[in-house]
């Protein structure tokens, strides 16, 4: 950015990082709430009964790879390579959508198996945490699609690669949150009923 600022950093990017700092406390609270309640499954299914690790591993992997495509999209636009930028943006959005699709599938399976939102403190905490993450991913997809649209309208050029960078930061953040969720919620041995 050409704008002169005291620190030499762009407003927008700095704001995004401050926001991500704030998000740490949001997800921290949700994760802690979940941890507190992972044993409180009342009469419903326990986490250990219901999680499908292989399935979630695949969707986690998909989300992780979307971080790669995201950074490739950024590298492309920074080179001025609009074509590849579009390609990678689209791929990222698609990978995100696959992840969300997986989550929707997971949720419906859980509900079919008797784990509804109101089944137990565990279920409420689980759906709230992963739901919040899912909403973040979905918002990310919306933003990526908006980028694509403005790219096709010729508005996204090397000059404003920073917009891609900032949305990328958000995207990667949502990814690292999932890295934590995947380990702490899914992989750490779970109680069974």
């Amino acid at each position: 950015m050409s704008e002169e600022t005291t620190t030499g950093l762009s407003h927008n990017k700095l704001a995004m990082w401050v926001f991500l700092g704030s998000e740490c406390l949001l997800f921290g609270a949700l994760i802690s709430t979940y941890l507190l309640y992972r044993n409180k499954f009342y009469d419903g299914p326990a986490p250990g009964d219901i999680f499908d690790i292989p399935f979630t591993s695949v969707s986690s992997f998909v989300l992780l790879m979307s971080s790669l495509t995201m950074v490739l999209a950024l590298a492309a636009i920074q080179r001025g390579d609009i074509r590849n930028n579009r390609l990678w943006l689209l791929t990222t959005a698609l990978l995100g959508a696959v992840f969300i699709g997986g989550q929707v599938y997971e949720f419906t399976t859980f509900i079919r198996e008797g784990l509804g939102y109101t089944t137990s403190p565990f279920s409420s905490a689980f759906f709230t945490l992963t739901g919040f993450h899912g909403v973040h991913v979905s918002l990310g997809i919306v933003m990526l699609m908006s980028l694509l649209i403005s790219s096709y309208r010729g508005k996204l050029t090397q000059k404003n690669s920073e917009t891609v960078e900032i949305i990328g930061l958000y995207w990667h953040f949502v990814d690292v949150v999932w890295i934590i969720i995947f380990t702490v919620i899914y992989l750490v041995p779970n109680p069974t009923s």
Partner: protein
Amino acid sequence: MTDTISEEVTEEQRPLGVYTRPKGGNGWRDWITTVDHKKIGILYGAAALFFFIIGGIEALLIRLQLATPNGTVLGADMYNQVFTMHGVTMIFLAAMPLAAAFANYLIPLQIGARDVAFPRLNAMSFWVFLAGGIFINLSWLLGGAPDGGWFGYAPNTGVIFSPSVGMDFYAIGLQITGIASLVSAINLTVTVLNMRAPGMTLFKMPVLTWMLFVVQLLLVFAMPVIAVALFLLMFSRQFGANFFNTEMGADPLLWQHLFWIFGHPEVYILVLPSFGIISEVIPTFSRKPIFGYDFMVFSGIAIGFMGWGVWAHHMFVSGIGPLSVAAFSLSTMFIAVPTGVKILNWIATMWGGRVKFSSPMLFSVGVISMFTIGGLSGVTHALSPADTQQTDTYYIVAHFHYVIFGGIIFGLFAGLYFWWPKVFGHMLDEKMGKINFWVMLVGFNMTFGPMHVLGLQGMSRRIDTYSPGFGFEAWNMVATIGSFIIALSVLIFLINVVTSVKKARGKPPCGPDPWDARSLEWMTPNPTPEHNFDEIPTVESLDEFWHRKWGTDDEGQIVRVATAEEVCQKGTATGVHLPSPSYWPLIFAIGLPLLGLGLIFNLWLTLPGGILIVTALYAWIFEPVDDPDGPHGDHHEVNEEISEGASDV
């Protein structure tokens, strides 16, 4: 709410006076579309004062009910709503936004910037806050106000125990004002870091800016915690989630922890702005620089930091176990140290000075002594065994009104008197200001002083009535009388505002430097012109403005090197490129309460709310950065260099 008091004075004369804007034409449109940090500051101030009076009237109702035993002014149900709304209104809709008013108005000026980093986001923060405030208060009309206390302990806030829609309004309304606070905090954080004038290093920033900066950081990290707590509450109430359903093994302490992890940083969010304000006022009227600037700054940071490790002192009796109690008891006590550093530095600043007790100064000295009382009673709560006797009694009520009213409201009044000429171009009447102070001081101590005694005598808080015979009668009556004296003092303030505006009408603005002030904001004329600085000054020292006025002669005597008029910019620059107004922040803000009402009453209502929000966001993004017909849209190459700053977000 501001344009109703407008007067017929042309814009040229008073470009900024809220009470003197032209009524006709598109005056109100100017206000609802403004992205000017100063106007937004004024809007924050006006709204906060409005809510302060609402909260104050609620307080008077509380006091009327409690004036005598077996009071009958309010029923139990109404009483519970009134005290809950009193707490919520005062904390979230009066004290926080009043601080936000100062932050918005003064941060850019004190660091030598033309505006905040994201002007439109700034407007959005205000409108969202206002929408949230109105939304919460709508509950009075739509089925009952919240009745679970301002910290709304679960499970008493669940649908079974609080069946009216009140707590829904609480959960959603505070969520909305929370968005406003978070967005504004990010905005101001970036502003402070990124938009300082050349030479303005972090350690040349005025103490007020520093304290406000710490507050923004606290907000950035604390708001998400209350957001989660409120989401859990909302999901429990709207969708039957089991976060607080103890029958299924949920733990009611979850809410308490989340609330107070936010809640304790919150009390420093409330008090630090006031500490900052008096750190500007006291040096000015003592004619000395602030004593121990570095220590002032670092103690502020220390308070903000330590504030994260003490939250469970609100839970000493809630059964968290002796080890936790011990740990939090100790951490709480030591917060007195950095706070004490501040108190003593203020005293040292005045000591040996030539102290002028003008009204801002009186209020500041009021803060020093009254806050100390509250802080010391705070230390007695920190003795956890003693707190088992004190908690949830009027002794606590006394503590927090001493820190809040004595520490915050007094400080904010100091700020109002001090910067009034800066904002509106005319002074408030000094004599009335002093009367205002003394009446308030007496009323305040009469109201809250006796509460110490009541609390130690065992009067519980949040009781709508008490029986005769426990020895509560006399002091309650005194407190009630005192509260009306406070009301009188607030009334004196309002009268002062009105008469001062009247007196100033048609007269030229007061001089640029009515107080022999010290910091950068006074380098612009009063009232501040729309573009702030004609030319961004280069800063060499703390108290830059003062150092440009005063120098030392050979004998080390302080002598005037320039008059304020000479130092002060003329405010005449033209063609400064400023961000253009926008409707979308307001439209966005209107969408949120609709969304909220939809969640409470009828999901269909979320539709228009959602549409407004999405439309506003997209329009916002695609709105041209410059309105070609805008007042300052001329985009000459020459002006490009001084148009720095504001981003187009």
